[in-house]
């Protein structure tokens, strides 16, 4: 198990390395100069050259990449803005703030949004899916299946503004979405995030309903499930002990992917509700051609996805003894 984890972590580092390289190449491949955005009204060739020099953009791309890697691992005190300990992504072109610090500032918003939504969509989605599978073919099942189908066809940028318009601006039942740190006021943290949670988890819950239902129905047709029934175990016992165990594999797989990508920033949700999370940061960095920030967000999001992938693979071993031994 330990060897497996070490191998996977090394693989993840290699992927991140390649990813940073590709990002670098793509950034310089795009005919867009960050200096043009920065120099404002006083733009002339001299000032642009000056900005290039200050940002280090006048150096060859390989050298710039070398510096980036060095700073990332070792940190750097070469920046005019101040010292930059490892992991150092440098300072944002746009805000002039340390990229790592910005990421860490934005992270709690994204984590709060993701975890809260994940709890909701797992409970609701899996619960509905299991109920539908248990009552397969009945009205309950058909309603759940049809409802899930309709809801998963909706988009956050439709459902989000709709929820805002009705629940916040017209009825004033809920607060306007905002992020308040849980350490300051747990209540306003909760009330500020409840609408984003509900909207985000509604769409995910619909997908998990469909997945849990189909996965359970598939498992219930397995022969070993029939064997368990043939030896006199009750329907509920067989449902939860035998079929559920097998259904966990696809559910955990998808959940790992979803959680990883949500931790990297739920871009549309954060934009819809103006939540200052990592997703907003990602859009900003692209918009302002902000290379350090772009690299920071990219690598952070990718790390999250890779990390959850490894966690999922490790979980397989707990769920399925056949994985454990091979």
């Amino acid at each position, binding site marked *: 198990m330990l060897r497996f984890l070490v191998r996977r972590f090394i693989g993840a580092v290699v992927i991140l390395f390649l990813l940073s390289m590709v990002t670098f190449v793509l950034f310089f491949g795009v005919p867009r100069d960050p200096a043009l955005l920065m120099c404002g009204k006083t733009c002339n060739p001299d000032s642009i050259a000056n900005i290039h020099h200050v940002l280090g953009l006048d150096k060859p791309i390989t050298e710039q990449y070398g510096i980036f890697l060095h700073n990332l691992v070792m940190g750097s005190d070469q920046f005019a803005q101040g010292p930059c300990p490892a992991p150092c992504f440098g300072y944002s072109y746009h805000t002039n703030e340390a990229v790592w610090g910005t990421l860490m500032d934005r992270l709690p918003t994204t984590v709060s949004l993701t975890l809260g939504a994940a709890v909701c969509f797992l409970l609701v989605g899996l619960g509905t899916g299991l109920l539908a599978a248990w009552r397969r073919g009945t009205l309950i099942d058909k309603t759940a299946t049809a409802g899930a189908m309709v809801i998963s066809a909706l988009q956050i940028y439709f459902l989000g503004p709709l929820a805002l318009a009705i629940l916040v601006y017209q009825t004033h039942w809920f607060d306007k979405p905002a992020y308040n740190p849980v350490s300051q006021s747990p209540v306003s943290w909760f009330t500020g995030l409840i609408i984003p949670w509900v909207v985000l988890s509604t769409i995910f819950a619909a997908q998990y309903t469909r997945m849990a239902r189909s996965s359970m129905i598939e498992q219930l047709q397995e022969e070993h499930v029939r064997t368990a029934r043939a030896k*006199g175990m009750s329907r509920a016992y067989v449902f939860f002990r035998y079929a559920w165990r097998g259904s966990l594999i696809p559910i955990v797989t998808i959940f790992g992917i979803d959680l990883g990508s949500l931790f990297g920033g739920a871009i549309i949700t954060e934009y819809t509700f103006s939540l200052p999370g990592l997703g907003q940061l990602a859009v900003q960095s692209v918009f302002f051609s902000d290379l350090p920030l772009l690299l920071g967000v990219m690598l952070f999001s990718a790390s999250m996805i890779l990390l959850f992938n490894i966690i999922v693979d490790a979980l397989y071993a707990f769920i399925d003894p056949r994985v454990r031994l091979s």
Partner: protein
Amino acid sequence: MTTLTKEAGAPTPAGAGPLLSVRDLHVSFKTEDGIVRAVDGLSFDLERGRTLGIVGESGSGKSVTNLTILGLHNPMFTTVEGEILLDGRELTTARESELEKLRGNKVAMIFQDPLTALSPYYTVGRQIAEPYMKHNGASKKEAWQRAVEMLGKVGIPNPVERAKDYPHQFSGGMRQRAMIAMALVCDPDLLIADEPTTALDVTVQAQILDLLKDLQQEFGSGIIFITHDLGVIADMADDIMVMYAGGAVERGTTGEVLRAPRHPYTWGLLNSMPRLDSDLGAPLSPIPGSPPSLLTPPSGCRFHPRCTFQDRVEGTGRCVRERPLLAPDRASACHLTADQKRTIFIEEIKPRLG
């Protein structure tokens, strides 16, 4: 006394009559294409301690019959008519909770492929212990000890350690032994073995069959043994019922059915068996045609489209019009006269069997 059909009558009191008595059983499934009549008017009896072999092609209704005995059909799509009496107790109308108490306790089942029939997620010991805990109210520890004991009984070496293993750590033959241990853990009166040796290689097959016979001696269970392998059935069964298209076409003791079969379908089955002492180049002679669709079964005798003897029956087209009935006891459902059956078998079929 053999296990042949008596006249259907009043339910027999527990303990006196046959262990299992199936009367005019009809099982049909609703599908998108229509109604599939998987079992169509089947009757048979099984006495305690005896083995009934059910032979037939895939889709002849043998597995469906046995799943129905256990009540494991999906009630939403399945219609069951007729009677299934276990020890005089009616099972087709029994409540689910009653059936649960019988399954694995009075009636146990061994499935064809032990790899897919055992759960990959739990240890072999746990899977054997589960029904013992449920039906005997045993504690976890007692049930585990019983599981280990059963694994020893079915010939698993070092059962104390092997009980902690998962099914995938067992070989094919050992898995089927574990499956048998699981079926017998509550000492059932009736054991249904659904092609228990089909997935195993031949040497292991022989071991498993010997094991089943030994355990039957010890536990005194009645066994229904489903197979399409006549060699296996000759070895295992006291009586044979041949099934075709959802109904029984011939029955009798093993000796009677295999030595003097009376139904064209049984002749076909015997004929299509390869023999070790025949010429290597000699082609097998399969039964012409393919098994009928149970959505639209053939009229009259279900076997008539594939039968090469139908023109010898008195009265033209009788096989197409009229369904032959299966009489009680030693019998075959065919319009040929008893004399014809005897003559055809001795003069035309037997020489070819060698």
